[in-house]
């Protein structure tokens, strides 16, 4: 026999969530300003040169990085991302498909802006050798928080990445002949070195809930309170349109503010709250990644 709360959740999810949000709480017990706990593990795939698994709330994502040698273009190497989801394309709800699309856009945006790794630092021998990092993202489960978990996993995997040191056997080559990678002789040493990360961007997702003041005159009702809800679950995401994704790095550097449409406009004061929450989150996630790196080194 289902409890009245469960029945309400099925019949009128809006009312169910409203009763919690009015007290600045969420059904799973946390405050609306709290994020779900993050767990990060590095080096989970031993065959990969760098890998990370992140569990954030209900989302579980594994990222692995495989470096390949290639020829640089415009003085920089490359990072290619491929997202593989275990969610069946037909079964996945619209909301999940939209989340997946947004996650891919977010990753591309971060790579294109050199937010984690400067692709110019992937060049080993100028105009001849550079690394191409093939990033495989495997989405294992989703309950909201997909973009957040994936960005953290990508940062973790790139932080974990150990590149072999390579050099050209024969440095003096004929300048007339064009350089052919397939014919080049490379010296690959056993030594491994880490990539220098430019920044530790962290993604945070929010939804907004417009709370109307029950009492008061017409003037008061117009000044409705816009609540920020951190890290919404899947059901909440589907219920409330207009999720906002913010990616911030160190020292107030913002890499992305994305809101894919919502009925209510977002005021500057709401965005202020959002960015300050995101900045706090960035600091705590950076600590988690650094701790994981230290454990890996031991």
């Amino acid at each position, binding site marked *: 026999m289902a409890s009245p709360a469960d029945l309400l959740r099925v019949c009128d999810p809006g009312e169910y969530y409203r009763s919690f949000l009015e007290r600045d709480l969420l059904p799973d017990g946390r405050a609306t300003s709290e994020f779900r706990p993050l767990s990060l593990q590095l080096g989970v795939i031993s065959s990969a040169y760098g890998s990370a698994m992140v569990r954030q709330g209900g989302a579980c994502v594994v990222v692995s990085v495989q470096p390949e040698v290639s020829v640089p273009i415009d003085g920089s190497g490359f990072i290619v991302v491929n997202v593989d989801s275990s969610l069946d394309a037909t079964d996945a709800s619209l909301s999940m498909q939209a989340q997946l699309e947004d996650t891919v*856009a977010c990753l591309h945006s971060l790579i*294109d802006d050199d937010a984690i790794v400067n692709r110019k630092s992937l060049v080993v021998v100028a105009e001849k050798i550079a690394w191409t990092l093939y990033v495989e993202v495997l989405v294992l489960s989703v309950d909201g928080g997909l973009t957040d978990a994936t960005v953290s996993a990508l940062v973790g995997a790139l932080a974990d990445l150990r590149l072999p040191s390579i050099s050209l056997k024969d440095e003096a080559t004929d300048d007339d002949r064009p350089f052919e990678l397939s014919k080049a002789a490379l010296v690959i040493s056993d030594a491994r070195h880490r990539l220098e990360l430019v920044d530790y961007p962290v993604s945070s997702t929010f939804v907004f809930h417009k709370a109307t003041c029950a009492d008061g005159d017409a003037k008061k009702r117009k000044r409705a309170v816009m609540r920020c809800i951190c890290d919404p679950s899947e059901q909440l995401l589907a219920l409330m349109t*207009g999720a906002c994704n913010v990616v911030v790095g160190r020292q107030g*550097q913002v890499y*992305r503010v994305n*809101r*894919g449409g919502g009925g209510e*406009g977002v005021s*500057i004061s709401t965005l202020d709250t959002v*960015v300050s929450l995101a900045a706090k989150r960035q600091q705590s996630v950076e600590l988690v990644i650094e701790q994981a790196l230290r454990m890996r080194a031991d």
Partner: protein
Amino acid sequence: MDTEMSSNTNDGETSAVSMTKLRTLRAQLSVLHRADGSVALQQGGTVVWAAVYGPGDSTASKRLNDRAFIDVLFKPKVARPVNDIGATKENVSPLLRGTCESMVDIRRHPRTLIELVVQELTDDGGLRAVCLTAGCLALLDAGIPMTAVFCGVSVALMPDDRLVLDPPLKEQKMATALFTFALKSAESEVEMISCDTNGRFQFDHFKRAVSLAIEAAAEVFLFYREMMQRKLSLG
């Protein structure tokens, strides 16, 4: 017409905000006769065509029981592979889809499909914002019931901390960040409903860009009014 304005930021520093006007808007409604609604829109040098089909029949995969399914197709001038990192920067589909789903009265036509196709013809800067504007004009031309009108505005952040409204491609390429906003107008109040950013910036830049975009949007909504008056021969 360039107007230089000095404004005091919170920490007492003065920063110059260059408030260039929006580029000239030119549009022609109902350019495609087979579509229910269409528009050819030109903003400065950027030209975009948009067409709306619907509300109409849909396949089972695009049928929702309680609302209309909005399908947005963005056609870039040059097709690029899915994994192309640069291509997602130009993709306006998610932004446009999200905005349409909130602005179109989707509860009015359940189990139907509303298809919006946007074709890029020339990109001379601010492409995504122009696509947003074209999308709304096409929806208006088709007579799709909407809860509010919306438009797109782009703002670029230049390396010298200057904000440029509706930048042409040459300036856009030199920008450290580009902001694309979707703004809605309801009861003469303009609010920002969607946004997307490229590049890196400080939050203060973003706030200033939002204010700039909200002011500029009023011009676009005036343009909508003119277009619709012309269409319905009221002007």
